Each structure stands twice: as C-alpha cells, then as structure tokens.
C-alpha cells in the first residue's frame, strides 16, 4: 500500500501516439487511456511516440521504474486498476451487466473501428495517425503489413470479405442501439446505480466514439451508424468539451520535442462548425450577388441598345466633327 501511494505521488507520464483530428491522440488504443486518466482527475504528463506504430506496448503509463504496458495484464487500464494506481471501477467491476457491456465494446465496437480504419476506408486516417512522422518507405511497408494483420485478425479473406463486412457493421449497429438505450439521457453509463460516477466503460466508449466521429472520413459507414444514435453523439461531444477542449489549454506541455498542437487543433475544431454555417451564408450571398450583377449588366445592355440609335447619330456627328477638324 505504501508503494502504491508512493507511486501515486510520483508523476505519471502517458506515452501515446500523436495528436490529430482535434483529439489529444487519435489512436483507438491510446485515447481511452487518456480519457480514463482525465475522468479520474489524475494529473499526468503526455509524451508522444512517433516512430513505433506497430508496437503493442503503446500506450503505456510510466514513472521512473514503474511501467504499465498495454500488452500486459489485459491493458493499461486493467494494469492501473490492479496496481492500485487509478481505479474507477471498484463498485461495478463485478456487476454482470457492466462486465458484458464492457466486453461488447471491447470486442464488437473495437473490431468495427479496426476494420473501418484499415480495411473499410482508404487508409488516409490511419496514415495520418500512425505514419505521418515516419519516412515514406518505412511508413508504406508498415501500413501494408498492418492491413494484412488486421485482415488475419478479423478473419477476412477474398471469399468472405463482403460477408464479414456486413457482419461487422451489423454487430456495430446492434451495439450502438443497445448502448443508446442503456444510456438514455444520463451523463454516464450508470447501471442502475444511485450515484453517477464515470467508470472505465465510459472512458472506452467515449474514446471509441470520438475517433469514429472525428478521425474517420465523412463517407465512413460506421460513422454514419453512430450518427443515427443522437444521444450517444451528444454524450461523446459533451465529454469532449468538458475533458479535452478545456483541459487542452490548462494541462502541462508534453515531454517530447514535438510541438504541442492540442490548443490550435481544438480551436480550429470549434471554428469548423461555425465555418460550415458561414459557407452556407457565403453561398447564398454569392448567389444573390451573382443575380444582382447579372441584372445590372442586363440593364446596362438594354440601356445601351435602346439609346444605341441616338448614340450612333452622336457618334456620326462626332465623326463628322472630327472629319471637319481633320480637314
């Protein structure tokens, strides 16, 4: 117990993948850990690893000689719980419903997001999250390797690719509907408890939802399915605003040489929604301006053509005058 208190007093550092798409980290395994630490109000430093996209050790939380890797004891969150460093699930971790919801998110939704990032889309999101800081040849080879291993993991082959895709999306839809029903209008997944406290379930789902909403392209099927559940989208955005956007301006600088892009990204993201409205206004303004100009042009032409006769005579006189002058 002394050790764990000592460890809590030592500053924790979370090593995750780089920030992008307006999120402090856009990697599906790193963002839930970040949100979990934020929900627990634990202060920590953020450090980025830009050169190891295929490592299963990342994300990890460390402080001097203590490390909680992602590929041990069921993940970083589980390691932190077991080592008594951060535990939000003490009241719920034995409730069967909580466990099965948690398992559903960690299998169906996690697989769906994995599929969407690597196989279902053109890979531009994955490239930006994982390979944008590696030299091109290395990034390309690692990307192809990862696509292959994801297909192996999800059991996708040339023959069953369509069937598997359908199955993955169907399961994701079922999961979203169930979660939407379970959440209702609450601020956290409560499991019929009297007290509304966040648990790791919230952290994992918020992480999944934010990446699905912001990191995937607009044409993504999975994103479309999530957007159908309005209360889930509201829930994710609300926590994003509370945890990520406000925190980004107050938390300490990350311990890496990569300049912190959090604040600028979040401000650009808040601007993006007004931007969408502005472009609508702009479009209508431009349309009106175009009509106005066209009508003006028409009026001028009509004026000129109507007065064209008198103009011509005037022009002739002018010519005649000129002729006189000339002579």
């Amino acid at each position: 117990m002394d050790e764990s208190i000592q460890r809590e007093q030592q500053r924790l550092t979370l090593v995750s993948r780089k920030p992008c798409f307006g999120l402090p980290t856009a990697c599906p395994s790193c963002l839930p850990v970040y949100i979990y630490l934020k929900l627990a109000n634990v202060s920590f430093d953020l450090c980025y690893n830009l050169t190891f996209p295929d490592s299963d050790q990342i994300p990890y939380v460390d402080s001097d000689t203590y490390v909680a890797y992602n590929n041990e004891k069921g993940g970083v969150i589980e390691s932190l719980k077991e080592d008594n460093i951060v535990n939000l699930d003490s009241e719920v971790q034995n409730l069967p419903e909580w466990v099965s919801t948690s398992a559903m998110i960690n299998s169906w939704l996690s697989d769906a997001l994995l599929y969407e990032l690597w196989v279902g889309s053109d890979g531009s999101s994955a490239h930006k999250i994982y390979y944008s800081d590696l030299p091109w040849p290395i990034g390309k080879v690692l990307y192809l390797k990862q696509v292959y291993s994801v297909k192996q993991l999800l059991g996708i082959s040339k023959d069953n690719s369509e069937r598997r895709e359908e199955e993955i999306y169907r399961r994701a839809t079922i999961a979203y509907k169930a979660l939407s029903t379970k959440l209702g209008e609450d601020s956290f997944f409560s499991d019929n408890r009297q007290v509304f406290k966040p648990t790791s379930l919230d952290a994992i789902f918020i992480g999944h939802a934010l990446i699905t909403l912001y990191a995937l392209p607009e044409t993504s099927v999975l994103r479309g399915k999530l957007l159908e559940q309005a209360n889930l989208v509201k829930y994710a955005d609300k926590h994003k605003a509370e945890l990520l956007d406000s925190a980004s301006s107050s938390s300490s600088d990350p311990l890496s040489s990569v300049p912190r892009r959090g604040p600028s990204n979040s401000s650009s993201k808040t601007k993006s929604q007004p931007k969408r409205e502005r472009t609508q206004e702009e479009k209508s303004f431009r349309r009106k301006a175009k009509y106005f100009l066209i009508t003006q042009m028409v009026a001028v032409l009509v004026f000129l053509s109507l007065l064209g006769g008198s103009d011509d005579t005037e022009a002739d006189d002018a010519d005649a005058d000129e002729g006189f002058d000339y002579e």
Partner: protein
Amino acid sequence: MVEEDKPIPEIDEDEEESSNRDEEEEEDDFDDEDEEESVVTPESRMRAEKARMDGVFRRLSSERVPLRVHDVLIKGNKKTKESIIEAEIEALKTATSVQELLQAATIANARLQKLDIFDSVNITLDSGPPELPGTSNVIVEVVESKNPLTGDIGIFTKPEARSWSLEGSLKFKNLFGYGDLWDGSLSYGWDQTSEVSAGISLPRFMRLLTPVMARVSLLSQDWLKFSSYKEQSLGLSLGLLSTRNHDLAYNLSWRTLTDPSQMASKSIRRQLGHGLLSHLKYTFKIDKRNSTLRPTKGFAFVSGSQLGGLFPDYRSLRFIRQEFDLRYALPLGFARAALNVGVAGGVLFPWGSEFMNRPTSLPDRFFLGGNSSPVCTLGGPTSLLGFKTRGLGPSEPKREVKTNSEAANSDVGERDFLGGDLAVTAFADLSFDLPLKVLRDSNIHAHAFACAGSLTKLTENSFRDFSFQKYKDSFRSSAGFGLIVPTKLFRMEVNYCYILRQHEHDRAKTGVQFSFSSPM
C-alpha cells in the same frame, strides 16, 4: 622469313632472361643470326647465345631501349568482356621502352590476377609485324575459372563490426562477364550479432578508379542483457571508394529497436521504434606497425567520420560522428620488448532543428568495455580491460516488476547502460618475451598494462553542467598483467586485472579474466 619459324617461348614475367631472348629476336639484325648459324656446333651456339644475352642485359641496364607496342591480343576469354581485361592492361599500350613494357606487363598480370575470376594469366611479348621494326605484339592469355561457385567458412572481422565473427559464404564469380563477384554470406558474431547478407562487387563501374561494391544485409543484434533492446537492421551499403588508406561508403538502412523483454529503463523506452538511417562514412587508415598481433615498432592512425541524415526525407536520423585512434609502438631493445601506447576518442552529436535538446540515437552512441585487447583493436574508443561489455558510462535502472517475493523491494536493481556521446580511452602496454625458450618459440609472451577511459553524455543540455573537474572525475582506470597466446586465428590473453577507479554502477571486476581479440 626465318625469324617467324623460331619458337616463341611463353614467359613468366619474373624471368627477365627469357624475355631478353625475345627482345633479342626483335632487336638484333636477323641477317647476323643467319650468318652465325652457319657455324653448327652446339657448344659454340650456346656460347654465342650467352654472349648475346650478356650484351642485351648490359644494354638494358645501362641505356633505354626504345620499343613500341603495336597490337594487344586477348585470348582465352569466353565469358569475360574484353573491356574488363583491356581496362587492366591500359598501361601496356603506352609503353615506349623495353623496361617500361616489362614493368607494365608485370603490373597488368598482377591486376588481372586480382580480379579473382581467372585461374591463370599469361602475358607474352612477341615480335611485331616484320615490316615495322622496333615494335612488339603483346598477347594476353587468360584461363577463366571453370568452377564459378566457391564456398568458404572462416573467422573474419569487418571494419564496421566491433568484434570478430564466424562467417560462411558462397561466392559466384563472373556471372555476367563483367568481372562481377556475387556473394551471399551468413555470419554469427561474438557479441550476439547475426547477419545474412548478399553483395556484388564490380571492378569497373562507369570509369570509377576503384571497384564498386554493393551489399544488402539483414542484421540482428541482441543487447537485451546490457541495454534492454534488440536491434534489427535491413540495409543497403555501397562502397564507393576503397584504397589502402581511404574508404568511402554510403549506407541506407531501416533500423528497428524493440524490447521483447519489456524491462527497459525510461530512456531506452523512449528510443524504441523504427528509424531510417542514411549516412556517408569515410575512413582514413594508416598502419605502419610491423605486426597487428604483436606490434613492436611503428605507428597507426585511424580516423572515421560519419555524416547521417543525407536522405532527402527530413525524418531520417541526423547526426555527425567522429572517432580517431592513434597508436605508437616503441621497441625497447631487449627480449623483444615493446611499449605500446595509444589514445582514442570519439564524439557524436545530432544536427538539425533543436539539436541541443534532442537525445542522440541509441545504437550510434559509443559504448566502452569488453574483453578485447586495446593493442589489437584499432578503430576508435571501444575497449577497457577489466570492465564488462558495455559495462561503464551513464546508466539507468531497469523496470521494476512487482512480484510476490521480497526481492522486488530490494535496492539492487538491474541497470541499462545507455552509452555516451563523448568517449576517450588511453592505454599503455609493455610486452616482453618470457625467459623460457619453448614459450619464446611459440610467440607466447607476457605483458603489463594500464588503461583509462571515460564516457559521458553531451546532449539534452548535459553539456551545460560540463566542468573540467567533473570530466576528470568521470575517468575510470584499471591496470594489470598477463600472458598472451597468439594463435593463427585470434589472440588469447589471460590477464589479472585490478580496477583502480570505477563508478558506483559500473560492471567491473578485479580478478583473472580471459580476453580474445582478432587483429583488425
């Protein structure tokens, strides 16, 4: 004409006498010979020949005998392209005297042999066409290797490797007729290194003066015990220039650092991942010592410079690494004794934006320690007797894993050695023969030595705390004596080492130790 009927002997270039006979045929007036042949007795013929040879010898040694090469004929090359052979015998065509021609022919023969694609090479000087006096035809006869495939197993040291390795290789000679040598090799090194590589060497590539070599290799090094990481590297290296003293090579490799043990310390954890290494390496070497296994006279100097970050991609590793090594051996005049002294140093620093704050790349750093003798290993600061491999310098505690036993709470933690950016080593070694004759005959001798070294970190603003006193304190030293047994393959030493000065976490031990080195 009579002279055409006379047999034209084939010659080995070392035998000047036979070549003189050829010169004789071209030089002398054939009418004279006709007249002399009318006197038939064999003894008188022999005397006349001898007199003639003496005369020619005298002429050759005293005056310049003019001669011009009319034509060069190449025979025996079924696969090899003529251009390759012609490139090696360029000098023959421009010879203007007999002496020059002989010298050029010797050199051309040696160069053709060095291509390593012929079983035998013969250069014959024949008389030129009869209507052109004072000319000669040169005939180059080569016999191509019947078996283009050769295999070999041996113990080698490569200049890049810091220790020796057991290597097996297969060579395929002259596949396309351009003198190309293809080889594939598998090697396993003393420091847990294993490498699979394939290479090609071209003697003539686009008019470059020296052979060009290209090598693709997959290298794997295991440093888990010392620094908790494993290094894997897939690389392409091009040898651009390689002469006796200069060597220029370009290397492009994809390097990955991993930690399968999951026990790495903090600094090592932050360095794991992939990297693209693109560097140009220039080595200048001059070795005037009389022996590499037991130098007793002479000096040697090696300077290696590496410039990393040449790939157009700004994300490749950028650094400058410079190391040098200076040795001197002074003979003491008794019992084949000699005093060997040496000093070596190296510095590494990154360049690019914010280079002061960034750490250097872990595998490129300097590491001191190990069991190799400083007398034999030439090539930068590497060894310090008495200290284990990678046994000194900046270190950090490894990860602590909570176990059920009490041992987890103890203070004795394993440490990772991180290497340093500035390394300096110096040594002095007095070697001498032992009084027993049987030991003297097998070259077994004794030595007494003293060495000192220091390894420090410069980057990440450490240089701000740098002070001369602190630097002096960072030196470690050891001294001792021992017995050296040189064998054909390597040099074995049995030493008693006493550590004079070490730092708290260094891995050093006072006592008897064995050391193996291979001459580099």
